[in-house]
């Protein structure tokens, strides 16, 4: 080998067998390679239409309306009216601990296409109980089924100040009652609803958003919410209550606001979290779009539950006397 160090030129290999071995190796490898590659078929699925269920069971409230629709193709104009489904048979069951139905609640179509209402408006949703929804159609083959276990009833037990100075060192506190767990840990969503959402009352951050972002208006922020927040973020007091420092970012408008603390079930958490992943911002690469996480058999959508409590306060401008 090393005698070629003498050479001004490295010759093309001539010995007969060598070319054959090299050529044979390449040809064989390529053949095997092409054979494997030809099995690598990864094509797009054909578009499939799914039934979409939407219902939110609220603790201590009447049974919710159930909205049924179908998915539309991406390029189509979307309106719920166009997608709404008629001809559904909907029933909600309150389950015993063993899983058998304790009580059945029938639903009927409402005046709005695709929206179904409980026939019994008197039933108040019980905390820490499992509800099941079952749906079939007179005019479609799909059969849908989903379950939710309602969280414990939630209560904000501390006194709310009538007025809070925005971004003052005295941050607003919410003390949430001790909750009996129905899942691994409680998951909260906090939202703030402005009573009179006028643009001149926007807090500085949201005001800039409205001014600088296209297609953004003040009313987009009249009801702001946090992402789902695990109980693990908060210190649990000795008595089991949880003290939450209400974050200023939740305040979009000065003035009267309702502040809601919501304890949500896993189904809702899955839906909201995964919807935010689909919009981007996770560890997924841009353009890598996953489906949402649905806890519904036979279709997609949400049959979730939550418990909430509301307090009211007035957020005052720092310079306001």
């Amino acid at each position: 080998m090393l005698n070629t160090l003498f050479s001004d030129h490295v010759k093309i290999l001539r010995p007969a067998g060598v070319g054959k071995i090299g050529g044979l190796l390449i040809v064989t490898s390529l053949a095997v390679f092409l054979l494997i590659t030809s099995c690598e078929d990864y094509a797009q699925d054909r578009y499939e239409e799914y039934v979409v269920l939407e219902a939110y069971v609220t603790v201590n409230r009447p049974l919710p309306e159930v909205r049924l629709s179908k998915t539309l193709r991406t390029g189509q104009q979307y309106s719920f009216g166009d997608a709404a489904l008629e001809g559904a048979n909907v029933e909600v069951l309150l389950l015993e601990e063993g899983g058998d139905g304790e009580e059945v609640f029938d639903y009927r179509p409402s005046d709005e296409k695709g929206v179904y209402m409980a026939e019994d408006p008197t039933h108040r949703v019980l905390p820490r109980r499992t509800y099941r929804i079952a749906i079939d159609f007179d005019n479609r083959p799909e059969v849908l089924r989903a379950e939710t276990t309602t969280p414990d009833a939630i209560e904000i037990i501390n006194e709310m100040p009538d007025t809070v100075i925005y971004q003052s060192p005295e941050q607003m506190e919410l003390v949430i009652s001790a909750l009996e767990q129905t899942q691994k840990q409680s998951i909260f969503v906090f939202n703030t609803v402005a009573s009179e959402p006028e643009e001149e009352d926007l807090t500085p951050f949201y005001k800039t958003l409205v001014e600088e972002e296209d297609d953004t208006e003040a009313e987009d922020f009249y009801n702001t919410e946090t992402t789902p927040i695990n109980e693990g973020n908060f210190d649990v007091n000795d008595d089991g209550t949880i003290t939450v420092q209400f974050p200023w970012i939740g305040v979009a408008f000065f003035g009267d606001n309702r502040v809601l603390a919501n304890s949500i079930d896993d189904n809702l958490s899955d839906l909201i979290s995964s919807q935010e992943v689909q919009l981007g911002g996770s560890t997924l690469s841009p353009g890598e779009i996953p489906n949402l996480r649905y806890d519904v058999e036979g279709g997609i959508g949400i049959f979730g539950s939550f418990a909430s409590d509301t307090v009211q306060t007035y957020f005052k401008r720092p310079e306001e006397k």
Partner: protein
Amino acid sequence: MISNEGSPNISVASRVIFLVMLVSYAAPGVVWADDIYTASDPLPREKISLPTERIPLPGVLGEIEKQSDGTFSYATPPQDSEAIPPVSVTVRNRAPSDLERQTPVKFSPAGRTVAATKMADTSPGAEATAGVNASVNGYISDRESGETLLAANVALLEINRGASTNNSGYYTITNIPPGTYTLVATYIGYQRYEQEITLEEGENRRINIALAPKSLQLDELVVRSQAEEEEQKDIGRAHISTQLIKELPAVLTPDVFRSVQLLPGVKAASDFSSGLYIRGGSPDQTLILLDETTVYNPSHFFGLFSTFNPDAVKDVQLYKGGYPAKYGGRIGSVLTIYNKDGNRNETGGTASIGMLASRASIEGPYKYGSYMLAVRRSTIEPVLRLVEDAPETFYFYDINGKLNFDISENDRLSLAFYSGTDVISWPIFEDAVIDLNYGNQTVSAQWRKIISDKLFSTVTATGSRYFNEPQFQFAGTSFESENNVRDGSLKADLEYIPNEHHTVSVGFWGGAMTLRLQELFDKEYAFDRELYSRYASAYLQEQWKPSDRWMATGGLRINAFSKGSYLRLAPRLSVEHRPAENIRIQAAYGRYNQFLALMTNEAFSGFDTWMTTAEDVPPSYGDQFSLGLKTIPFSSYGFDVEFYYRTMRDLFELDPFVGDNAGLDYAEQFRFGKGYAYGMEVFLEKQVGRLSGFVGYTFGITRRKFPGFNVNLPDEPRRGRFYPPKYDRTHDMNIVANYRLSQRWSVSAVFNYSTGQAYTDPQGRTQFSNLPWGSSNRDAFVIGSMNSSRLPPYHRMDLSFSRSGRFFSLGDAEWQFQLINLYNRSNIWFYNYDFDENPVEREDVSMLPTLPAISYTVHF
């Protein structure tokens, strides 16, 4: 030239003296001759006629003497028993190769003389019959700077024995029969070194070799050693020269990773990412070592380019796959980067002004060795001030330094450090600001010792720190995070070369690492976790060369990781066969383990977070198979083909659907999956000459599968299907060319064409309009197969012109004018979907447009 049937009309050089070292045929492996004659003139072209009948060797030599007017002198007369068949002999400043093929005598030019040597019997066990043999060893370095050269080749021509320098620039050839030899050393870009040496019985000769860089010559004589080319073509291994890194057109500043991305088998995720996606693996599957020290986040400027300053870098080697037992800890690849030691002969430096960053370096000798210091800092701030909504503060810097102590002839000590940081402060709105501070620091101390002619050792202590500390302040609410990796280790490697058939390597690497992740929401701790782990690994590797045609390297690596108490064995094996001089067939298999995973986003590397295995989070592992064919079809060309197949199992990565990890068990944050990749790489290169460059083509497939991801709605909500990650590109081709227009001007061009990246084309949509909170409806896409569509093909051409000259009388200087994306191709990065429009509208998000760049560099 004449043949044995040729005419007696023979032109004979008038003054030719041959040195003939004639070896006794009765004692294979021993050189007996010792007479040396010096020629006063270069060896001329010879035409020599030999008798047509088969004659003994003394007769042949006598005929040459007669026709050439030369004289042979023998220590021992040649034997009559060695008959030479009819043969054509041509002597054109080189060996009479035809004669060589007919006899066991090897003819070698050595300066103005020619040596003739009986070929040693190199078969296993032959040395047992020999006397006490000699050895030669030492460092190979650049003659001008004194920098050691890694993977340089050295050979003793007469006995067909060679070696290449290790990562310390050290070589050794053992078990050499006493005698006189021609020692040759070669390295790409350097003039061939040749020296005649005479070794006594049992002698251990230290020969440190200084190679002279080739000067720029338009009609450069291309003399290319095949051995040199071959040594750099181990299976799966690639080498990038720092000169190439500096010459290539690069986005804003020369970059090591951007250059590595041009190699076949290596892909870039986008114009904005310098991450290395090698053979279907994600960036965290590549172990990145700077002076033997792990670097955890080697990126600047949001990931746009890597932290490695080309002024400071001496050598870059990439093991794309099937890497040897010496390395471990990643299931994909290894990238080793060595910083310069510093000029050992004279003090010099470089200053470079560029649009994004400017650089300065200084290096030189001192009493005990050498030093090097290189700094780089961004200089783009004035430009950013002109841009609306640009960050208020943005800068990055890095510093590389190295200090070498030559303790003795056999002991060298070096201290190296690196520190780099990116700082950004960006008020994006009123009452909203993003602050980010991230970077790396490394330090290493290495002791290299030549214990004996057969034993070389390195002991290295390393320290590495990576940190990122993003802070967001939105409307009086803060989101803060602090992520720290601290890693301290000690590694030791021993290389034992008992003879030309065996090289045994053994080593140990142990250390401790702490990964800390803290997250604060509104000044309250939301997450605070510290992961501490000790790790240790050891390897044993044997390279066995039973003959010139076969070589096998087997090894076993054992890895232990205390977090989760894991112990893993990783066997490695590679075999090489050379059916002919310029063809190598290689095959390799290896198992690889990985105890770390990186939580990252392709779009931005500043938040990168490392996580470790733990209880219920087993380490990833994978098998790699590769097959390669390496050839040298023409002088100075290389043509390689490699096939690979690899598996990836127990991949663990942050579950993208876990929005909030507070209160979760450690293992609950992850999703666990698997994957595979296979492909073919073709590489044609021409490394020297007026026109140099390469063409690389890759056919590659890579797939991943995670439970609950890429599911077939609504029937299999948790199963998952294999899908291609975004960076999967079936076809990828790079053409890199450098043409020296004149002594002053040169032009470089890079062209890339590749299949469009995978993306998910939404099929359907729906809307959740009744959520109990929020001001607007929530839109959602319905997806079919994940990433089953392809963006338009990517292609881009970059051009760079360089003009060299002088900066007054202070030193050499170079202007570099560059055009990135010459024809302004609008390559799509991804599609954005606007739900504010009904029907939803798709918008293109493009990558880099045409960008001009200019830089000026002075070498003093």
